């Protein structure tokens, strides 16, 4: 059985633990053995994107130390995995850059790992209803994650109804969502509006931070289907 280390992400650990529970259940349902390295914290992306590479590097080094021993690292976030792939080799210099590249090569987004690495589309979950998928930016553009969540959902029996502009940003953007709430809010409205127009029961995505931003907006406006993480939705459809 393949063994994977779960990088649950700080957002999921602290704000959306059910997504981590879902990720573990899906990985186990797909036949993997999951380990959770207790020393893990955050990938450092908030600092990197804010323009604070020194702070980001400190966390990148910690991440390297924690996850280097494992054969595979899986996270329920395309954005955090993209951080490892795209930025780590540039944050840690010289000798450590090759360590970072080696780590990136075995660090995977959850749905991508299930479908492309384990070759599992049917995890044994049953999802009734219609879903529309928001392609979270970093998973899509840095990692090429597009089909994997759709395949998993389709195999679970969900009907996918594509919304307008599934690949357009939801407006989260990390520190942007605090520094520019005046734009982030309307961008969430655009995404929720498109999702509502699709008629789907669920607005599914692979990044908890985007979903918390969308749900936070939806709680103000009442518009749009319920945002839910793909791991949470699928795991909810597993026989318990």
């Amino acid at each position, binding site marked *: 059985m393949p063994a994977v280390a779960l990088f649950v992400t700080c957002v999921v650990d602290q*704000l959306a633990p059910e997504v981590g529970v879902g990720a573990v259940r899906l990985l186990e349902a797909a036949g993997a053995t999951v380990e959770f390295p207790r020393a893990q914290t955050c990938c450092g992306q908030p600092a990197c994107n804010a323009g604070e590479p*020194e*702070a980001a590097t400190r966390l990148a080094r910690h991440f390297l130390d924690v996850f280097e021993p494992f054969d595979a690292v899986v996270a329920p976030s395309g954005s955090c995995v993209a951080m490892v792939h795209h930025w780590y080799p540039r944050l840690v210099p010289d000798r450590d850059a090759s360590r970072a590249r080696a780590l990136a090569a075995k660090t995977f987004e959850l749905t991508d790992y299930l479908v492309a690495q384990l070759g599992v589309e049917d995890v044994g979950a049953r999802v009734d209803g219609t879903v529309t998928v928001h392609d979270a930016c970093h998973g899509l*553009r840095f990692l090429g994650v597009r089909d994997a969540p759709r395949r998993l959902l389709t195999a679970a029996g969900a009907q996918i109804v594509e919304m307008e502009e599934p690949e357009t940003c939801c407006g989260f953007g990390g520190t*942007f969502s605090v520094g520019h709430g005046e734009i982030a809010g309307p*961008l969430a409205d655009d995404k929720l509006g498109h999702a509502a127009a699709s008629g789907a029961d669920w607005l599914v995505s692979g990044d908890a931070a985007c979903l918390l931003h969308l749900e936070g907006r939806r709680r103000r406006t009442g518009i749009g289907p319920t945002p839910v993480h793909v791991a949470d939705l699928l795991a909810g459809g597993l026989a318990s």
Partner: protein
Amino acid sequence: MSHEVITPGDTLAARAASAVADVELQHALRNLDRRLFTARTVEESFPHLKARAAALRRETLADLPAWIDRTERVLDGLGVHVHRAATPEAARRIIVEIARTEGLTRAVKSKSMATEEIDLADALTAAGIETVETDLGEYIVQVAGERPSHMIVPAIHKTLAQVAEVLQTRADGPLPVEHEAITAWARDHLRARFLAADLGITGGNFVAADTGTLVLVTNEGNGDLCTIIPRVQVAVVPVEKVISRFSDLATLLPLLTMSATGQRISNYVTMINGPRRAGEIDGPEVLHVVLLDHGRLRLVGTAYEDMLACIRCGACLNVCPVFRRISGHAYDAVYSGPMGKVLTPLLSLDGTEGRDLPGASTLCGACTEACPVEIPLADLLVRLRTDLRSPGPVDPLAAEVGAEPPAGHDRQPGEGFGSRVLDSPLVSRRPARHVRSTAFDTWARLWATPSGYARSTRLARLGARVGARRGTKHWIRARVPGLGGWTATRDAPAPAARSFRDRWDARADGREHW
């Protein structure tokens, strides 16, 4: 600056809020939605084409000063008067002086971002030279006393009714709110200006170093008229518009039009090889080319060199979720959208302009993806956030100039391309001693240890646990210090009553079953 401020606000955030609240603007901006194509949908081979174009641009940039010298020599040989302007002020002075020396009084102008950058129309008007924009969109914003809000579609921020209202002031009778009628009126109205003009002002989309060919890409034919009717033509060409070979146009020209408007080629492509020669029936008798630097050459060899590859297609604006909501004026800069967020601070020689622009991005990467010359726009924004982080005016290049180029990336002309920003290290280029850096540093030190992470998250959860029931998620509506920007438009999630790791431990102990 004589331009009317139409999106009020002292800060970018305030202007963005005004733009979002402007109902007519939001209505007009829906016209941008149909520009949400990528060149890939026009041309299947776009990925190959853009890789080729990116290589061509990098080849020229790697040795830009030499290519500029060569261009100057070739233009000189064609009888073109070549001027080099280090600053917008110098460029204005040169052009006003040309007009005075030649005794010119009536100028027609084709669309050019470089002339916007140097505020040329205002300078000519102030010098007593009647200057009329002849691109319809540019004409609309000129009459309105504004500046273009989009480099390809300058008046995209206006509804048709607003356009009719603006142009009304120049028409004899009322103008119908109808595309064709307004266009027909403008054609007539502008034709008289073309015929009377003695000075034609243009930009230059490309200038070929081997043949000295100046290339103008337009859709309305106004660029043609600006170059064939007036006795004198002045082309303002930023230095990075130099391309190494005329034959490079085979790649760059279709890529520009595909990315700009979805056309395989524009309605007009004007190619000018020097002033009118004996026996030729049209073209300017006198042709001046003003090569504008304005801080560009100092980007060569830095991590920001890639920005000089830009061919001003506007694709990054069209796909940018932020631009599509706030439009160009909110940026309060000549260049807007993702490329403007990068270029504006880089061109600010005194380090004061565009400082808050790089922060106004979700870093979604749609711009990087759309760019036909593979400029890593989102990465450059991240780098600028670092290089601009010190309070007060700061030269973003301070940490870049003199920095060692990354090992193995000393490129020779013709060697092909490699993005410097992708390979140059991000850290330790400048000591950080301001509030934001200190805050992130403290946070990172805490979270680089499991115990620090545990302590700080426990503290955060304590607050949220008040009144919380186990296992439920709670949302914060009230303004929280430091989170005001979030809670102004959205509820904020409170830390979960039990973290994932608590639940993992509970499962391991058999207290919880998943």
